[in-house]
């Protein structure tokens, strides 16, 4: 494993926590904002060593490994590979945007709000960097509390319902994840994820641990039918909450699939793949269809998330290079585009104090720059060519059609639905009789330009020249898939052998019972 002198991952995980402590000593809200913004920029600067990431290895890099509680075999074990590093960059990049888009939006308890944001960033970075299962779980749980608070304290009128629903759903998922974690420790003898990856487990064990982990991850993604917490949480959350939720939190579920399900339970993953693909397709179609019927802008985008994340899970469970690449691209793209769309809703909400589409008709005339950005992000959202989502969507489609023509054909309606609801929304916002225009409304100010311009650059950059991202992820994904194929084919040979010997002895295969 490649090591580096400077403990960069520890530094980026703990800087926000240190900053949280400093916040206690700052009184004025404006200072709090500036301070958090500066911290978020320092965080970005601290990421510089990560630019030395080696593209041509599947090994974990920037590894830090210290014994934590040796008695129980717990370790403080961090590292990144081509899959997680993209998520780490996304997390760090989203923080300053969240601060900027909350600048005037958040008026009460400013200090506590920024405390939650910073704490959340630490926890999310921890999730993506942890290579020890328990450490992963600690960060996974740590992020629930600030998210709960973001919704419950700074949310809309129905915030207590939404926040409780959020925490109940995700806690239910994490509880079974804990069971899986302990099971891996008992059977595998270690919490270290890279070491667990080298072991092979019995089918029965994989069967149950896969189900347990999948429940946790599927709730987080969220996959249909575990998605109902998401629209509620999004609608009630403040803008920054929605952005963090959409850009980072949802990715943890799909990251979990890639980090745990495929490498640790490959046979069960393959066994359950048809179910996972079916659920993914259901998510894509259902998310799109429901989004089409919404009148609340945040709800439209929330349901569109369900559909987009369906593409991600679909790509993962196709088990081919293009599919998984597409999935990872979609994770990144969804983070950029949907995050930006939520910021756009926040921007207009600050003016019209309504998220209803009908209250925001015909604003193109007064806010051309706003509509320009909105158009770009909306187009990106439905996979317009030359924008980022198109790359991801195309890869998933190629993967799907390669795997099976019918899977490919099944998601086409989802693609169409995405175009329909986004064009409908963009059309209503830019056209029609202005419903809420008031004298004194201004087009985007400098701060708004900044936080919308940055994702806009990435929309076009990834859409037109995604070479760097391919380079980053390709080796890791190829490693993941070849490892997966090796394990599943080894298992298939073993089962074949066992079956033939059982058949000679005239005994029925106990696995058949389980499989049937």
């Amino acid at each position, binding site marked *: 494993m490649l090591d580096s002198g400077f403990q960069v991952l520890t530094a980026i995980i703990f800087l926000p926590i240190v900053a949280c402590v400093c916040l206690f000593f700052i009184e004025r809200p404006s200072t709090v904002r500036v301070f958090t913004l500066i911290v978020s920029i320092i965080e970005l600067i601290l990421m510089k060593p990560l630019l030395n990431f080696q593209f041509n290895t599947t090994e974990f890099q920037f590894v830090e490994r210290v014994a934590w509680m040796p008695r129980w075999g717990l370790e403080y074990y961090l590292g990144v590979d081509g899959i997680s590093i993209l998520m780490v960059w996304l997390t760090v990049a989203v923080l300053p945007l969240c601060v900027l888009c909350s600048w005037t939006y958040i008026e009460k308890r400013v200090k506590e709000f920024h405390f939650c944001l910073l704490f959340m960033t630490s926890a999310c970075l921890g999730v993506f960097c942890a290579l020890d299962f328990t450490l992963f779980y600690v960060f996974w749980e740590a992020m629930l509390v600030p998210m709960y608070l973001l919704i419950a304290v700074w949310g809309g009128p129905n915030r207590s319902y939404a926040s409780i629903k959020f925490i109940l759903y995700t806690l239910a998922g994490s509880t079974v994840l804990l069971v899986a974690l302990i099971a891996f420790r008992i059977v595998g003898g270690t919490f270290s994820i890279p070491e667990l990856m080298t072991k092979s487990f019995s089918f029965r064990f994989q069967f149950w641990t896969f189900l347990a982990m999948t429940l946790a991850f599927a709730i987080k993604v969220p996959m249909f039918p575990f998605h109902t917490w998401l629209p509620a949480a999004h609608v009630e959350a403040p803008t920054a909450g929605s952005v963090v939720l959409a850009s980072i939190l949802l990715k943890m579920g799909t990251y979990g699939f890639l980090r745990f399900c495929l490498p640790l339970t490959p046979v069960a993953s393959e066994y359950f793949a048809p179910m996972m693909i079916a659920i993914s397709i259901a998510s894509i179609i259902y998310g799109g269809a429901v989004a089409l019927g919404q009148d609340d802008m945040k709800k439209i985008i929330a349901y569109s998330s369900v559909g987009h994340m369906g593409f991600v899970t679909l790509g993962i469970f196709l088990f081919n290079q293009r599919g998984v690449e597409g999935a990872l691209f979609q994770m990144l793209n969804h983070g950029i585009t949907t995050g930006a769309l939520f910021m756009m809703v926040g921007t207009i909400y600050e003016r019209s104090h309504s998220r209803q589409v009908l209250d925001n008709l015909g604003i193109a005339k007064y806010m051309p720059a706003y509509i320009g950005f909105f158009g770009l992000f909306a187009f990106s959202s439905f996979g317009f060519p030359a924008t980022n989502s198109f790359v991801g969507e195309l890869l998933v489609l*190629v993967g799907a*059609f390669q795997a099976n023509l019918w899977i490919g*054909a099944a998601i*086409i309606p989802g*693609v169409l639905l995405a175009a329909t609801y986004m064009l409908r929304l963009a059309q209503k916002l830019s056209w029609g009789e202005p419903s809420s225009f008031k004298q004194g409304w201004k087009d985007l100010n400098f701060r708004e330009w900044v936080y919308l311009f940055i994702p806009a650059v990435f929309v076009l950059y990834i859409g037109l020249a995604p070479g760097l991202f*391919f380079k980053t992820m390709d080796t890791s994904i190829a490693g993941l898939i070849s490892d997966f194929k090796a394990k599943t084919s080894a298992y298939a040979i073993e089962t074949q052998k066992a079956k033939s010997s059982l058949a000679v002895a005239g005994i029925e295969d106990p696995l058949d019972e389980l499989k049937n």
Partner: protein
Amino acid sequence: MTPAKEIVESVAVTYPVIITLIAPFLVYAFRKDPNKREAVSFIAAMATFLCVLSMAPEVLAGRILKYTVFTIMPGITVSFSADGLSMIFGMVSSFLWFIATSYNIGYMRGLKEHAQTRYYVCFAVAILGAQGVSFASNVFTLYLFYEIITVFTYPLVAHHQDEEAYSGARKYLVYLVGTSKVFLLPAMVLTYILCGTLDYHLGDMTKGMYPSDANGLLVTVTYALFIAGIAKAAIMPFHNWLPSAMVAPTPVSALLHAVAVVKAGVFCICRVILSGFGLDTMDRLGLGLPTAYIAAFTIVAASIIAITKDDLKARLAYSTVSQLSYVVLGVTMLTPIAVQGGMLHIANHAFSKITLFFTAGAIYVATHTKSISQMKGYGWRMPWTFGAFGIAALSMIGVPPVCGFVSKWYMVNGAVTIHQMPLLIALLASTILNVGYFVPVLYTAFFKSPDPGSHVEQYSEAPATMVVPLFFTAIVSVLLGLYPEAVTQFIKIFGGM
């Protein structure tokens, strides 16, 4: 067939796209001063046309200019190339943009239309789309600009922002986005899976990009998806958006729904057949004739519907549906002479049909009349306008020496060569039907006496900014009939004929 052509790396092929990309921003920047704003359109159109024209010597020397701008992933790039086929559409669309800008000024200012900046911006973006489509070097670039056209012509169709405009524009979007997402996108994905690349096979229209050992059924499905996905070509049953799009201001119907948008559609079909599948694959899988029959049906059916329409623009719309299928029919007959006729018709129809729409708009600006039955006696009040209408109508019918005759000649020749009598009958029937729906317009205008109390004498020609362009395009129609070589030299170099 000539040997494979030399492919030359040249950034010049991106200039028309770059100019049309910058133009909308400049138009918007000059929104406060209408004269400067329209001057930008004029200058950009002329610059684009000259850039396209400057590539002509290279292309005629048998070279293909190519340039890759962005690489998305191996085999999927944003790249442009100029060969004979792209030159035809590139020249026609940029030249007519120049003419249409003059006409636009007369029409939009004459009717005091609202939101003119939005209108000119979208107009320029639509031309960007047309230039991008014509110089696209692979299916991805084609798809990108095809979609740009769709999205940015929506505001033009819905320009009047009333109930009728919205419902027409909705239909427009549903048809075009629906087909492109449901058919064209999977077609592109399947092509990528089958070929490993989306780059056209340029330089030889007999060979395509699909490997000869590819699954025949899958290639056939891909072909069907392409034909269904390119709804801009308005082949039945995906034609209905075009008559609905006629709610747009007339210059939009003229340049976009007679030239840029619909020609982008038939151009895409030509491209996909000639540089994507290749005549050999088309022939081997027997894909040509079924498509030719659908096109022939569209030609006849749309002509019959056109006769029943009293609204001049609706009649012209159905005439467009019918004439677009001429191009498709020519190309899918898969014999060099018919293919030549099909491609030639892209240019010929463009000049004649834009003339017809221009006259419809001029009549509307001068008299506020849309119905043919109300145009009694107008001919004598607006002789230049109706004169131009007559010339263009002769071209549509296929009377020499106007240009429509030339392309029809090639196609009839092709139908005879491949011994397809039904296709020949369709071509001839359409000629008669064309007479059936164009001549009554002229007859009403010139020979029917005005209704009492209609006060025809109050009408006169529309502003010169409108009448000059429309008469000019009519003259070009005649010139193209007399000197078809201007276009056919590009076709010959493209097809190696």
